[in-house]
């Protein structure tokens, strides 16, 4: 297993947001985590990336190593990249600077340059606009830039929070295809989505989070057929 989360509990002050979360992401998998607004999806990702600290007794194991007590920057070095909700680009830096910041933890100049070229091939628009400030991009382009920045750290695990947020369906479809390409290149993907259909179509396995509890898990195709999930999320 690449990522293992064991008995993770988290609280914002006195308000518990995550309860006994257990989940796994295997090497080479695409795993989806779905849930409605406020279910705790982003909170879980922030715990995994190290921006938030879980309660005592929680455990996060990455690539066979316990990383529960490490800071966010250390986890990036170990190979976890998070494309955060709302993109969180460095708005006053150029696109190129944003991407180079993505490679902050690396010092292999030649490999960084190669990765940059590969990413420009994946997102040609970013190459065109590399000298432009990131804050001037459209929503879809910003999302591309955020994904590209995440990839620049050469991660083993790419976690994407709400890829589809605020984007037109056609843009989402195109980005999903790109994620597929990234996955084909050997990156494990952990996708967190409100758009249940898109998420389950993309992924092999899935989890459903409801008010801080993991309520369903399993094969994505089975989950899509599940009556309760259909009713709650797909509106069928």
């Amino acid at each position: 297993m690449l990522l293992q989360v064991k008995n993770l509990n988290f609280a914002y002050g006195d308000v518990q947001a995550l309860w006994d979360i257990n989940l796994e992401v295997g090497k080479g998998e695409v795993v989806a985590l779905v849930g409605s607004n406020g279910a705790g999806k982003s909170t879980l990702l922030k715990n995994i990336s190290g921006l938030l600290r879980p309660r005592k007794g929680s455990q996060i194991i990455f690539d066979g190593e316990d990383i529960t007590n490490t800071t966010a920057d250390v986890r990036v070095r170990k190979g976890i990249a998070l494309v955060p909700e709302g993109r969180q680009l460095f708005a006053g830096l150029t696109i190129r600077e944003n991407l180079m910041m993505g490679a902050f933890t690396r010092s292999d100049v030649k490999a960084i340059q190669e990765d940059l070229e590969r990413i420009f091939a994946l997102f040609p628009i970013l190459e065109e606009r590399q000298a432009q400030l990131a804050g001037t991009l459209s929503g879809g382009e910003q999302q591309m830039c955020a994904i590209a920045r995440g990839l620049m750290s050469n991660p083993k695990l790419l976690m994407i929070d709400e890829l589809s947020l605020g984007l037109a369906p056609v843009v989402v479809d195109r980005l999903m295809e790109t994620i597929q390409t990234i996955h084909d290149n050997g990156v494990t993907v952990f996708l967190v989505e409100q758009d249940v259909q898109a998420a389950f179509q993309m992924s092999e396995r899935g989890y459903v989070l409801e008010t801080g509890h993991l309520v369903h898990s399993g094969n994505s195709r089975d989950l899509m057929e599940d009556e309760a999930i259909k009713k709650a999320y797909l509106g069928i």
Partner: protein
Amino acid sequence: MLFTSIINGLLLGGMYAAVGVGFSLVWGVMNTVNLSHGAMIMLGAYTTYWMSQYIGVNPLWFVPVAMLVTLFIGYLLQKYVINLTMKSGTNMTLILSHGFNLFLVNAAYILWKGDYRSIQSPFSGQGLNLFGTTVPYSRLIVFVIAIIVAILLQLFLSRTKTGTAIRATAQNKDAAQLVGVNISRIYSITFAIGCGLAGVAGALMSTNFVVTPTFGDPFIGRAFAVAVLGGLGTVSGAVLGGLVLGLAETLGALAFGPSFQNAIAFAILVLVLVIRPQGLMGKKFF
């Protein structure tokens, strides 16, 4: 008379730019108002004074030494003290740095007494004749060095990896962590640079003003005005803010009398806050 005032204003402004640029950087990047900036200016001035007392030669050679001394003190101060309070907000660091300012100023009183000390500038009495106005070399060189330091800082921030990480952290702390920046370390570096620049300012001004333990205190208010005037965290803004403040003070003194000097500076500050709160060079995204 007007021409002389403009020249004097610009020269004073260069000094204010040196005083304000580090203060502005720390404020803009860390959201910390570093009131110990004045003490760092004082330490830079004393470093220059003592070095030139014991070694002789042109005191301007000790500007880098003064910078290294305050850089080092600033680094330790941030890493081991201020860093502990970073999460508790601006007020806490404000009070803490004010306490450090008091501590350092009083330590200077104990160590060096309150004696007025002055450094003989090698250029004293000499000046450049510019259309009938004499521009003292000692002030001109301070101005030139201040501008050079500002340019070097700008190059550091825009061209180096660490500089880019500092700008990135200023813009989005969480995202900086997510790309692997250790922001505590960035804060220590930024604070050290801010203090080092205060040391440079102190060293430069020590050749023009009398050095006492409270040497730096009047400049804290100026640094504040320069930072707000120019736009927090921008180097070009601090330089422009410094020049505007210097000009306003000298021209104001010419028009309304010297006693209005401080009032005019802060009237401009209030005006900027009302009309253009992001500062003269403040960016939308910064």
